[in-house]
């Protein structure tokens, strides 16, 4: 039954056990399997929490208190779930950064399913954040769902449809709970597609070389399986350290107060992993502009596979300019994360504009740099792709300009006039 002649065993064997991996992949390549580990951890810890959680506006907060105090290892399991979400995002950002640096976006199918996974993770974590029904949970749900009201024509109706009424309430909580439960399983399906597409072409590698001969390849087991085991143990060590000793480090203090629709918290800040998006949202003086930029900040990743295709599959690793651009972009991302946690005053509000401009400006300059490099190899470059990038960027820049604070707009206009 388990003979390798069996087609299912053969399929599994070819996709896991004997899957050929380039020998030169470095440590940044292991974050993919760590993400898989985190997804499994979240599903298991989430299942145990769901057995004690009550999705009712009057009892949700009390059921969380009950889990913390009266359920065996309840607080620890919550710790795993909360800190696991943070680690999930941490690994995901590293995984995306690795993809951009080493040109992994050239595998378009893998890259696009990755973006879908990112959106699914963001949605799932937001929905989960609402469930404890503390002050931050409630107000986060109000603020984020209200963003949809900026969609022309259908916005206000859409928000009410999502709320299930005229305000965030019982119907909202129940459906958020159901969605929070089902979305991870959809993520599992997309992960399977993501990995399946990856296995179609094979893993990328730091040199960006394609090796059809298989000389530079080795089977996944035992080399990479034992490497993954080591990294998984290290990741579990961090997760246990966070969950056991710093359990509530990522829980804002306002969320220890039961949701009160009549009292707004003093500072509403999202979780650390959404702070960069929050900075982009705050960079625009109008709500609609902020939401548009926020959506574009994720969709902009989708233009990376449009980079001119060459026989050379590398990314920025051999381009000093590309490296500098990437370092600048990562630094800017870190600054955005920090600025997002600061109060909405000077100089932070002004800084958000510069950070947003740098964030978006990175992509065309980065692609241009790669295109110039590709031109040296005299390979295929399509006008069609260039047009797409141009149209997208003109629209982004117009959105940014129309949302710039008046003072900066005047300065630019004065500069252009003179």
């Amino acid at each position: 039954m388990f003979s390798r002649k069996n087609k299912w065993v053969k399929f599994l064997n070819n996709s896991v056990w004997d899957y050929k991996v380039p020998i030169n992949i470095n440590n940044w390549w292991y974050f993919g399997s760590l993400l898989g580990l985190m997804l499994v951890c979240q599903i298991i810890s989430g299942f145990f929490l769901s057995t004690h959680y009550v999705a009712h506006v009057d009892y949700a907060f009390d059921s969380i208190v009950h889990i913390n105090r009266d359920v065996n290892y309840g607080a620890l399991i919550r710790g795993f779930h909360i800190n696991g979400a943070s680690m999930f995002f941490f690994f995901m950002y590293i995984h995306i950064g690795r993809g951009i640096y080493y040109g992994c976006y050239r595998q378009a199918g893998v890259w696009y399913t990755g973006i879908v996974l990112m959106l699914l993770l963001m949605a799932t974590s937001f929905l989960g954040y609402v469930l404890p029904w503390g002050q931050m949970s409630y107000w986060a749900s109000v603020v984020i769902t209200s963003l949809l009201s900026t969609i022309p024509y259908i916005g206000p109706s859409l928000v009410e449809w999502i709320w299930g009424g005229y305000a965030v309430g019982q119907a909202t909580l129940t459906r958020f709970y159901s969605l929070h439960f089902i979305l991870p399983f959809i993520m599992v399906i997309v992960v399977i597609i993501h990995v399946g597409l990856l296995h179609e072409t094979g893993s990328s590698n730091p040199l960006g070389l394609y090796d059809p001969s298989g000389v530079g390849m080795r089977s996944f087991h035992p080399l990479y399986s034992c490497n993954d085991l080591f990294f998984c143990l290290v990741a579990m060590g961090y997760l246990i350290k966070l969950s056991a000793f710093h359990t509530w480090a990522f829980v804002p203090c306002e969320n220890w107060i039961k949701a009160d629709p009549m009292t707004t918290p003093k500072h509403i800040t999202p979780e650390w992993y959404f702070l960069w998006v929050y900075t982009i949202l705050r960079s625009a003086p109008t709500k609609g502009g902020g939401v548009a930029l926020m959506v574009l900040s994720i969709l902009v990743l989708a233009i990376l596979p449009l980079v001119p295709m060459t026989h050379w599959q590398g990314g920025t690793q051999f381009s000093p300019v590309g490296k500098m651009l990437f370092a600048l972009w990562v630094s800017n991302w870190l600054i955005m994360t920090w600025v997002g946690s600061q109060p909405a005053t000077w100089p932070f509000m002004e800084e958000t504009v510069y950070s947003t401009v740098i964030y978006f400006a990175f992509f065309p300059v980065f692609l241009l740099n790669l295109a110039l490099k590709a031109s040296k190899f005299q390979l295929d470059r399509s006008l069609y792709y260039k047009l797409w990038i141009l149209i997208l960027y003109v629209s982004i820049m117009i959105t940014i300009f129309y949302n710039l604070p008046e003072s900066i707009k005047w300065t630019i206009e004065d500069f252009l006039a003179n």
Partner: protein
Amino acid sequence: MSALLAKASRQGFLQAKTSISSQGACISTGRRFSRKKIALAVAGGVLGVGSVGVGMALLRPANAQELILHPPHYRWDFKGYFAAYDKASVRRGYQVYKQVCAACHTMEALCYRHLVDVCYSEREAKREAEEAMVWDGPNDAGQMFQRPGKLSDPFPKPYDNVEAAKAANNGAYPPDLGHVVLAREEAESYIFALLTGYCDPPAGYELADGMAYNPYFAGGAISMAQALYNEIIEYEDGTPATQSQLAKDVVTFLSWASDPDLEQRKKFGIKAGVVLFLMTPVAFYYKRFKFHTLYTQQIFWKKGK
């Protein structure tokens, strides 16, 4: 930067050490930097980061708009990887809570049973519970009645409802103390500083009737009057009840009340840490063992004839 990134990304993995130069070494320009250039880049980086740091340091006074005095960071003895709550202090803190705080504040999440084997024996906790009279019912005749408390009963509430609590406290609702330590920025240190930080308002500060001044409270004006004084209660164990001792004990009790599971989690963390401490080096050795042929091999590319 490019040299650092190249090092971090470990492209040296496939570099042949013989006369054949590797691809990474050929194309990366970082390796061609002279010492002078590297020194200049490092100096520039240090200067840049330093100036940002100085700017941030200078920015701090400009942000002092909210008139909140931040508490000092006290060293709490239950913080740390191998530390646990001082049970004697939790017991004294409960005494302070019962005799002082419970007059105005609720603690909805806690029942008398939670005290068992923490700071009271089961018999002592039952005696504590029986001191409170609890409404129960209806009985067989359909009447509500009062009975002595049981271990399963929550701590009694000082007011019947929120409105009554507000009416008795200058319009301010005394917050529930169940999670008060976790629900405040700077947690334990803030509560200790608040309890011991009452003083006269500065000159020119208008204080409304019935309000007290506390620099640690946002805005300074607080509805809660100073509650802790030297010798306000007498401890069962004879510990001198100074104001700071009372505050320290009640903060320890409130910390335990907010996070009673802390010690269980730490125990788990230590056990799991020991297991991982043993397993991870074994996994690392095994990984190196499996990879050693790959690490020591060289690949040559030769032009075909």
